[in-house]
């Protein structure tokens, strides 16, 4: 059975071109770039190309930093904890930080950690569209006392895109540092730090067909936070740890390819997503979350009325279709997904949400087959369900 992968917001296939580009740096050019000998120096040209591709990919200026790290989780932790360390050192009058109620755990849990240390944290609610706008900020924070705001660019569950440019402008106007977790945006929609002007931005290669375990943290020129990982001189002393040469080179190419494919994402991936969404919407008792035009072009979060999420992905998996669910029963923890609850979903919806996320490698034939599998699963599980007696 040919399997169909529709869980690209979790991770993506590594583009074969990226894999090929990484290959020479395992057994041939394996030197440490920080070494002075030829084994170290021979990789420098390739590393420079990779860094150029990353800078170009998000339109960073040469004066800005893109700190290479292990993933966006690390980037998010570096920023949030770093800002806290600076608050401790600075002792200014700004004692509040803010984030949204729908952030990824790597942001949410880090804020909760700061809260446990006594920091005043505001968790911003989403508006009726499921997004955070400058108005939400205005209503919920005191701009004079707020030191830092972190709002994701696009949501991992719903694909809903926040107006980060407006939020960044509001923060800038009030002297608030602004971070955006762009993990679900890079490779799906244009991401330009030149345009949005955040102070910090984080991304992860494996969400845009690069390898896992490598990511980047953008820091705008003139903004300083202490490193999370202290040690060697790598990354200008801002993130210690031997440079992961093959992965950095892979991420560089993955970024270039992702940006090159943005028009394809906006047209073909979107077309296939809409196709699947229309097929799903035609099934009675389904509800897609979030307006289409506000979402990344690859994501559908849908509730199948009367069908528990894990049961749904179980049945889909049996038919070779990989999707995911934020529902309570699917994950190892039994907590209901706080993001879905924050979006004002009815409680039963939070248990029935299933996410389908496409990539540029998804084909129309796959979408066609997946739609049939979904139909079949819904029919079987509806028959079992207590719902709609």
């Amino acid at each position, binding site marked *: 059975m040919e399997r169909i992968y529709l869980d690209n917001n979790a991770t993506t296939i590594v583009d074969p071109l990226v894999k090929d580009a990484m290959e020479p740096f395992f057994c041939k050019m394996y030197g440490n770039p920080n070494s002075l000998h030829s084994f170290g120096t021979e990789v420098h040209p390739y590393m420079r190309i990779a860094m150029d591709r990353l800078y170009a990919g998000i339109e960073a200026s040469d004066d800005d930093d893109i700190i290479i790290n292990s993933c966006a989780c690390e980037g998010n932790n570096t920023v949030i904890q770093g800002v806290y360390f600076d608050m401790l050192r600075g002792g200014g009058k700004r004692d509040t930080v803010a984030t949204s109620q729908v952030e990824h755990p790597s942001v949410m849990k880090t804020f909760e950690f700061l809260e446990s240390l006594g920091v005043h944290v505001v968790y911003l609610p989403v508006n009726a569209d499921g997004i955070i706008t400058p108005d939400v900020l205005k209503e919920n924070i005191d701009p004079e006392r707020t030191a830092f705001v972190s709002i994701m660019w696009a949501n991992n569950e719903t694909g809903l895109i926040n107006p980060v440019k407006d939020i960044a402008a509001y923060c800038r106007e009030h002297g608030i540092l602004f971070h955006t977790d762009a993990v679900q945006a890079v490779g799906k929609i244009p991401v330009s730090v030149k345009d949005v002007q955040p102070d910090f931005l984080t991304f992860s290669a494996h969400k845009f067909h690069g390898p896992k375990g490598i990511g980047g943290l953008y820091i705008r020129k003139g903004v300083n936070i202490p490193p999370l990982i202290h040690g060697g001189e790598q990354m200008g002393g801002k993130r210690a740890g031997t440079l992961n040469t093959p992965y950095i080179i892979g991420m560089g190419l993955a970024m270039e390819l992702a940006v090159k494919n943005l028009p394809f994402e906006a047209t073909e991936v979107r077309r296939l997503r809409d196709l699947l969404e229309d097929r799903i919407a035609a099934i009675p008792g389904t509800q897609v979350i979030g307006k289409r035009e506000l979402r990344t072009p690859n994501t559908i979060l849908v509730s199948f009325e009367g069908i528990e999420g894990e*049961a749904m992905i179980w049945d889909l998996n049996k038919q070779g279709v990989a999707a995911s669910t934020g529902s309570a029963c699917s994950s190892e923890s*039994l907590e209901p997904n706080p993001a879905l609850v924050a979006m004002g979903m009815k*409680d039963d919806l939070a248990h029935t949400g299933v996410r389908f996320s496409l990539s540029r490698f998804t084909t129309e034939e796959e979408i066609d087959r997946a739609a049939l599998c979904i139909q079949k699963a819904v029919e079987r599980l509806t028959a079992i369900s207590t719902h709609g007696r």
Partner: protein
Amino acid sequence: MGDRMAKKDLIGGSLWEQYSNKVAERMNSPRFMGEISEEEANSRGMKLVIADWGAEACGDAVRLYWLIDPKTQRIVDARFKSFGCGTAIASSDVMAELCIGKTVDEAVKITNIDVEHALRDEPDKAAIPPQKMHCSVMAYDVIKKAASLYKGVDISAIEEEEIVCECARVSLKTIQDVIRINDLKTVEEITQYTKAGAFCKSCIRPGGHEKRKHYLVDILRDTREKMQMEALKKQQTPLQDFHSMTLIQKHRAIEKVLDEKVRKALFRDGGSMEVVDMKESDGRISVYVQYAGSCAGCASATTGTLSFISEVLKQELDEAIDVYPV
């Protein structure tokens, strides 16, 4: 239920791998899924019971159909419907099967633990991972509901004891007893002794998967408080045993009497006193006291007050107490 080693826990996503084959089979093709209609019951001369438990908003809902022979009270057929995950569906299916052939009173004795055991591939290997045990509890609750409907009584009449941990079916009394008998000091110890809190963890403290009436943290705190109070009381009661107390216990007993009978009286006059030393020899106890406040310079302190203190201690504790001012 299978040991959870650190190494095993480091990489997630193993939830489905921990399901037994029977869980997967029952999920894929439940045998007792379906409904029983009133017409069918009537035509067979049977009584139909339809019980609902849970709610879709909570993520789990199950409906149980029983066809009962009114002459024998025996459940001749059972069917279920479920809004729930794989574990919930598989558990409901086995639960319905286990009901068939039993009387209503026998069926009430089926627990989620029986259901889990019936789903095992091997007798010693858990059918589902610990955090999914919760999803099998519904299967037990709905049986109670069905029995209460059949008997026309409140569901609380069916449950014999107060259950704290539904997953492991541990009662309030068991938990209180195990804390007392083994002098348990942590929730982890309670879990080790009873398995309570080892599964979905809802009963450990508020804020878990579901709201509970009792939480282990509260039971532990309350029981330990009670134990402490009892221990204190034990220490304080045997006044007649003053003679056989250790010097420290004697000191405590004296301080207690001074607090209750002496200091209050002195305080009204702006005075106070304290015990600075105690000696024990030849069966007599010498208590050395020092005055403070208005007592310190008072002429009667060495006479009237002293004999007052001495009298009180002799009366309350032991004739062999002598009080000396310092």
